[in-house]
């Protein structure tokens, strides 16, 4: 078992499992965000539940943070190790002849996603932590002293997407996420040994997921930018 964790294949498994976990999280994140397009009330209710339910806050959130940090850290460690496996580079290398741009540049799409993620965390997560755990306001209300003021989540979301620069940055972040997923989704299944009669269908599904999910996030950002009152 200890050999598994130290081996190249063990590292592959770990990368794949953390990626699969993050892809499930992305789907859950999207499911809540898309509510904001159809029903502000439903979005507020779901956000309040996720933001105050103990199991989400104290169990799932730490696991998610660990998963994100692990995936990025392991990605960089593997990149450094892989670069050191070829000390003299080719004078001419035609990588495009046998592999996709996405598969060869996961480190760059990942790096841009990391930058986007840091901005995203500052925009939403840090603010949430301040309100809930520093200021101690777990009410989720616009005015904590007034129950009639309603939940603050939808209003804060719309406010964030007013500046065009932030919308553009988010859209670019999702484009890089799509590029990352176009290789990463299918690659994760290959890494855990799933290359069989279902591979063809899985490849089709991975393309739908890799393009559809980031596109959905882009639509949400644009929707709130153009529908802000």
């Amino acid at each position, binding site marked *: *078992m200890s*050999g*598994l964790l130290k*081996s*190249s*294949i*063990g*590292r*592959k*498994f770990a990368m794949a499992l953390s990626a699969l976990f993050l892809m499930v999280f992305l789907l859950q994140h999207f499911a809540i965000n898309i509510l904001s397009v159809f029903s502000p009330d439903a979005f507020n209710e779901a956000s309040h539940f996720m933001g105050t339910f103990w199991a989400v806050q104290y169990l799932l959130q730490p696991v998610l943070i660990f998963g994100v940090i692990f995936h990025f850290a392991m990605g960089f460690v*593997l990149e450094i*190790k*892989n670069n*050191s*496996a*070829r*000390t*003299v*580079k*080719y*004078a*001419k*290398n*035609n*990588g495009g*002849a*046998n*592999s*996709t741009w996405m*598969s*060869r540049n*996961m480190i760059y799409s990942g790096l841009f996603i990391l930058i986007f993620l840091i901005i995203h965390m500052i925009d939403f997560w840090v603010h949430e932590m301040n309100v809930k755990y520093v200021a101690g306001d777990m009410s989720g209300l616009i005015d904590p002293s007034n129950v009639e003021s309603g939940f603050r989540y939808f209003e804060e979301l719309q406010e964030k997407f007013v500046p065009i620069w932030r919308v553009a940055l988010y859209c670019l972040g999702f484009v890089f996420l799509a590029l990352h997923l176009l*290789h990463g989704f*299918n*690659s994760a299944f*290959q*890494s*855990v*040994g*799933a*290359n*069989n009669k279902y591979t063809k269908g899985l490849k089709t599904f991975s393309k739908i997921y890799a393009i559809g999910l980031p596109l959905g996030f882009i639509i949400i950002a644009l929707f709130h930018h153009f529908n802000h009152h």
Partner: protein
Amino acid sequence: MNLTLKIWRQKNASDKGKMVDYKISDVSPDMSFLEMLDVLNTQLIESGDEPVAFDHDCREGICGMCSLYINGEAHGPDRGVTTCQLHMRKFKDGDTIYIEPFRAKAFPVIKDLVVDRSAFDRIQHAGGFISVNTSGNTQDANAIPINKENADKAFDAATCIGCGACVATCKNSSAMLYVSAKVSQFALLPQGQVEATDRVLNMVKQMDDEGFGNCTNTGACEVECPKGISLENIARMNTEFLKASLKG
């Protein structure tokens, strides 16, 4: 055809090495790539220069001895062939052709285009075999029933000639396609089951110890492999390794 060749020249393992330009004329499109290099070497010898060292043996795409990274691709621009099966008709008059050795820390250059691929031999020694009792009562292999699909897949995996194109073309210099072919050819057959656990653990450990990189599933190895070894073998090796690790 008249061509410009940019060839990696390196006197020995410790030499720094550099790309050197050569002009070659009257190349027939029907020549093989290695025959073209033979002509170049004849010219070099006649002019008193050192000929270009390159690996070759059977020149039939079977032995896995020839290598060469040609115009940025392992075994050149053709598919499903080794360098010795590549023909000059794949190039045009006036072309500039880059010819480099297979590059990987685990494949050090010995001289010019010749690299040391003995890392593959050591991986094979670590577990790429089955132990057969030949004391006189050995069971006839043909008497052991084998599922047709598995027999075909095992045969396909066994066609790997160990040329190292997978390592050369992989951006990470990963040897996983090679090792997975050697693991799969036994893992799919009943004769390979007895040593299955030790085989995959030992071969993967040796692969890691040799300094090959980690596979990131770009699929370049499968495309450039002259024998069309499938990525399915890597997925199988991953599963075999996980099972063996949990068991061991």
